[in-house]
């Protein structure tokens, strides 16, 4: 059934139920004007909608009933039982027709002339033959239609939806948010207890809570298509009235947004589409003369962008007439001639948003009644949105409405500046760059032009803003040390936001800020994080406006380049302390689990500490060389490999930080790989291989070496010393002869020198020549052209994998997936290599 019709039936059934009650009330208290107006309104609505939907029978009956009620309301007709009766009879008929409509989707056949005549007779005050004070009105002047005979009294449509006040949903949402916070606290508590009877039910509770949250959020979301489904009809009617040929294109109808917002933009959108059809598009003849297709096009496009919903209403009509707007602005005293002279066309076009401004020289039935775009703009701004327009003479006009998702859940990157945390919508974050404030080391350096910071990013200049300065956070400007730069995409422009720290990403519920804070354009909302703290959500577009970026498409090239190699080297690092105050780090991917075991479960076996872990003995290695026997609990990092596990005893697990990793190698102390700057602090990165061997002397020699007769040779191309150090022993242990190369160029030198390998494992992100370029060169020609090529990447997103495969990589393995790498190598080497440049897709 037509969606409009379904909606009509639901509404009408509700109205009819209310009408019954109200009419009976009126019969008891005929003087009750409120009830009378209420009844009149309901019947009037039914009549109006019927006409709109093309339901003639319903319209006739409702119209006749409305006439009677109108007279009663005016006082020209008393609300006698007879009058009420005849109206009730009419309502019964309406019910019958509606029931038939619900069952078949079309009005049942039938004759209402008798009923209508009776109603009309009452309306003009004629005493109908049957009129007698006590005598009931003729109940059935016309025979009840056949189709309705067997229908149930209450149509099924009524039961399918239920109307709930938005406040109820709002309250539910608040309660669910609280529930989620409580759940998180419980989980935190449960984590500190190794075995707990609560674990299993808590897990279930957690799942149910998540489902519940999702469900409640869903109740508030509706596809924007719901606000659009009346537009095709409106456009069709307009097309008839104006004699223009109009095609309506709707894209992104399934873009979901908050129901309340949806209701509020319905009317502005309708108004804008009317405007486009009436003023925007030219008549067919004019279009032909202008060399355009006869059929004009109005396009609606909705999509999510940076925590907002963008709705574009565009037409390919004549565009906004700058001259006429200028003349009108001058005539209306909105601006002086001098002011107008200094304005750009775009600025002049914005006058249409001013109150009382309508360029339509004549008032049509459709639009141009003086309440125009200013009302649209006010309504959109009321819900925290904004409207922009772009218009080119002869090519058309595009309105871009931006509305915040008041209750949408978005993914946001949490950053900190001057000790305070902020959320940046993930959708506008292109990449994260680690930079130095002074020249030292390999990171790019923030340079200054007349004190304005900029960064060279892939041979382009990226404008930077310091979040600290921008928000006047008042921290003294740092002159040295590292900084994180969040590269944000704003429209077509790119902007780097300097922050002190970058935390994780979190799913957040965007809440609008209090009205007294709405003037701060830097924020698009605020939210409550998982830990219960309130945090402001930065609006990259507001930041761009505040810094004067965004108008030009200047930085587009950087954006494209950034998209091509978005991966970045961000690695989640586990920070912990052991035997000293300074933090130590290990890539989180290497750690199987984090455990916090009670002290008494640490036992001794042959003088070395062990613990029973999942039914087996697990050797424990004290990181600091000694065991603190006083602490009641012992934090342990568990490393696992196959069925062997090993626990590294540390003093305290501090944090998990996602950061770019650049390890400066130092071989001074065993057990440490070197030092890296993590979260702004110099941090020692531990050599897991060393500690694993402390527990199991033969950790890396545990597996029987396959095919010992001839060792397969594997080339590892990896710029990071750290990862190379990590990969070489792993692959060595897996039975390969491994050679490392620190860059693609070095690998190619090996090739040209005649080195032979059975497979190549290469990193994707490398300076100078990246893995993609390297793969292309290898595949192009030479002795390595048909070797299996395995790509290593920190984050393997589908588009990265696609790019890798295009370049000739045989397989894609995420970094630290030791088992996956082994399996991949085994597979590549077991089969005759089918990979040829042509056959890779």
């Amino acid at each position, binding site marked *: 059934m037509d969606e409009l019709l379904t909606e009509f039936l639901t509404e009408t059934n509700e109205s009819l139920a209310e009408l019954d009650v109200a009419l009976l009330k009126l019969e008891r208290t005929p003087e009750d004007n409120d009830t009378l107006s209420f009844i009149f309104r309901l019947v009037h609505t039914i009549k109006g909608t019927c006409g709109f939907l093309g339901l003639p029978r319903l319209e006739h009956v409702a119209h006749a009933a409305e006439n009677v009620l109108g007279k009663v309301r005016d006082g020209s007709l008393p609300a006698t039982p007879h009058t009420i009766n005849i109206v009730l009879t009419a309502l019964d008929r309406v019910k019958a027709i509606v029931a038939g409509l619900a069952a078949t989707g079309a009005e049942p056949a039938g004759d209402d002339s008798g009923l209508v005549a009776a109603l009309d007779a009452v309306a003009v005050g004629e005493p109908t033959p049957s009129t007698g004070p006590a005598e009931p009105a003729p109940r059935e002047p016309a025979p009840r239609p056949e189709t309705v005979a067997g229908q149930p009294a209450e149509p099924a449509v009524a039961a399918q939806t239920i109307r709930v006040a938005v406040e109820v949903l709002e309250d539910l949402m608040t309660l669910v948010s*609280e529930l989620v916070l409580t759940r998180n606290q419980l989980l935190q508590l449960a984590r500190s207890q190794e075995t707990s009877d609560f674990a299993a039910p808590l897990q279930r509770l957690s799942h149910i809570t998540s489902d519940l949250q999702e469900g409640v959020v869903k109740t508030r979301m509706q596809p924007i298509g719901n606000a659009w489904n009346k537009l095709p009809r409106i456009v069709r009617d307009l097309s008839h009235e104006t004699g223009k040929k109009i095609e309506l294109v709707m894209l992104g109808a399934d873009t979901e947004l908050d129901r309340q917002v949806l209701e509020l933009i319905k009317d502005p959108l309708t108004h804008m589409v009317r405007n486009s059809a009436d003023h925007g598009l030219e008549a067919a003849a004019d279009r032909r003369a202008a060399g355009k297709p006869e059929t004009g096009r109005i396009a609606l496009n909705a999509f999510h962008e940076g925590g907002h919903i963008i709705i574009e209403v565009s037409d390919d009509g004549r565009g906004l007439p700058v001259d006429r707007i200028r003349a009108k602005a001058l005539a209306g005293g909105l601006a002086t001639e001098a002011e107008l002279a200094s304005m750009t066309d775009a600025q002049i076009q914005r006058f249409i948003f001013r109150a009382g401004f309508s360029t339509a020289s004549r008032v049509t039935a459709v639009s141009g009644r003086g309440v125009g775009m200013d009302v649209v703009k006010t309504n959109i701004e009321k819900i925290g949105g904004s409207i922009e327009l772009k218009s080119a003479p002869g090519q058309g006009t595009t309105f871009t409405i931006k509305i915040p998702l008041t209750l949408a859940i978005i993914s946001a990157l949490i950053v900190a500046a001057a000790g305070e945390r902020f959320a940046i919508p993930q959708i506008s974050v292109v990449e994260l760059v680690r930079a130095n404030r002074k020249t030292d080391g390999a990171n790019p350096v923030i340079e200054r032009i007349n004190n304005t910071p900029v960064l060279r990013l892939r041979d382009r200049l990226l404008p930077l803003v310091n979040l600290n300065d921008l*928000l006047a956070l008042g921290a003294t400007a740092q002159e040295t040390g590292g900084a994180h730069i969040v590269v944000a995409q704003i429209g077509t422009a790119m902007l780097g936001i300097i922050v002190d720290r970058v935390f994780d990403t979190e799913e957040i519920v965007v809440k609008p800020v209090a009205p007294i804070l709405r*003037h701060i354009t*830097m924020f698009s909302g605020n939210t409550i994080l998982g830990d219960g703290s*309130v945090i402001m959500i930065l609006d990259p577009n507001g930041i761009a406006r505040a810094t004067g970026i965004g108008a030009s498409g200047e930085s587009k090239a950087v954006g494209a380049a950034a998209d091509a190699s978005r991966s970045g080297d961000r690695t989640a690092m586990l920070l912990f302390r052991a035997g000293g105050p300074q933090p130590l780090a290990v890539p989180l991917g290497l750690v199987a689990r984090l455990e916090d075991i009670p002290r008494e479960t640490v036992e001794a076996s042959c003088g070395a500490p062990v613990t029973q872990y999942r039914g087996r003995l697990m050797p424990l290695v004290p990181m600091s060389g000694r065991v603190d026997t006083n602490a009641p609990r012992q934090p342990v990092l568990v490393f696992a490999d196959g069925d062997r596990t090993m626990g590294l005893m540390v003093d305290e697990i501090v944090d998990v930080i996602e950061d770019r990793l650049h390890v400066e190698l130092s071989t001074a102390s065993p057990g440490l790989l070197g030092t890296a700057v993590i979260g702004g602090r110099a941090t020692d990165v531990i050599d897991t291989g060393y500690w694993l061997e402390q527990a199991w002397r033969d950790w890396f020699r545990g597996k029987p070496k396959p095919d010992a007769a001839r060792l397969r040779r594997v080339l590892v191309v990896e710029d990071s010393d750290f990862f190379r150090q990590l990969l070489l022993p792993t692959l060595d242990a897996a039975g390969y002869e491994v050679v490392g190369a620190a860059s693609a160029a070095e690998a190619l030198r090996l090739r040209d020198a005649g080195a032979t390998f059975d497979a190549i494992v290469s990193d994707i992100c490398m300076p100078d020549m990246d893995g993609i370029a390297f793969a292309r060169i290898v595949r192009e020609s030479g002795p390595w052209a048909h070797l299996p090529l395995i790509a290593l990447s920190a984050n393997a997103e589908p588009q990265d994998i696609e790019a890798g495969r295009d370049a000739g990589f045989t397989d894609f393995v995420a970094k630290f997936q030791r088992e996956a790498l082994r399996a991949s190598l085994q597979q590549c080497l077991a089969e005759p290599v089918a990979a040829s440049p042509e056959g890779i897709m």
Partner: protein
Amino acid sequence: MTVDLLDRQQAGIDEEQVFVTLTVADQLCGVPVLGVRDILGEQAITRIPLAPPEVAGSLNLRGRIVTAIDLRRRLRLAPPEAGTPCMSVVTEQGGELYALLVDQVSEVMSLKAVAFERNPATLPPEWSQFSAGVYRLDEQLLVVLDVGRLLALSDAG
């Protein structure tokens, strides 16, 4: 509200109004109890950059975000000495929750309309614009705060 109270007084009705009493910089003040949603102790408050100086920040009240207004700043009073405890009175205005940061929240008092008076003419504007009148208590005076005016930050001079 002022008018309302005066009317009652003039009408001689011996009606009582209930107030939550609080102190800010040693001055006893009151807000109508019906407008108070919650009383909070010391809270973690997130600073809001670029906000008006009277806005102390925002806090989380059982999943709702509450904007905290520093009453001392709003009344142009000196900042409290370090270590002074801080409490807040949560009120609702136009569907939004606001917390008024005060020094101390004390008891709930029921006050007779006969003890009510208009603002003394000499009350400085910082106070008179936010005061809806004064109650004469036995020991001291209680200033009735006009919460609506206090929260109308955009009007602030």
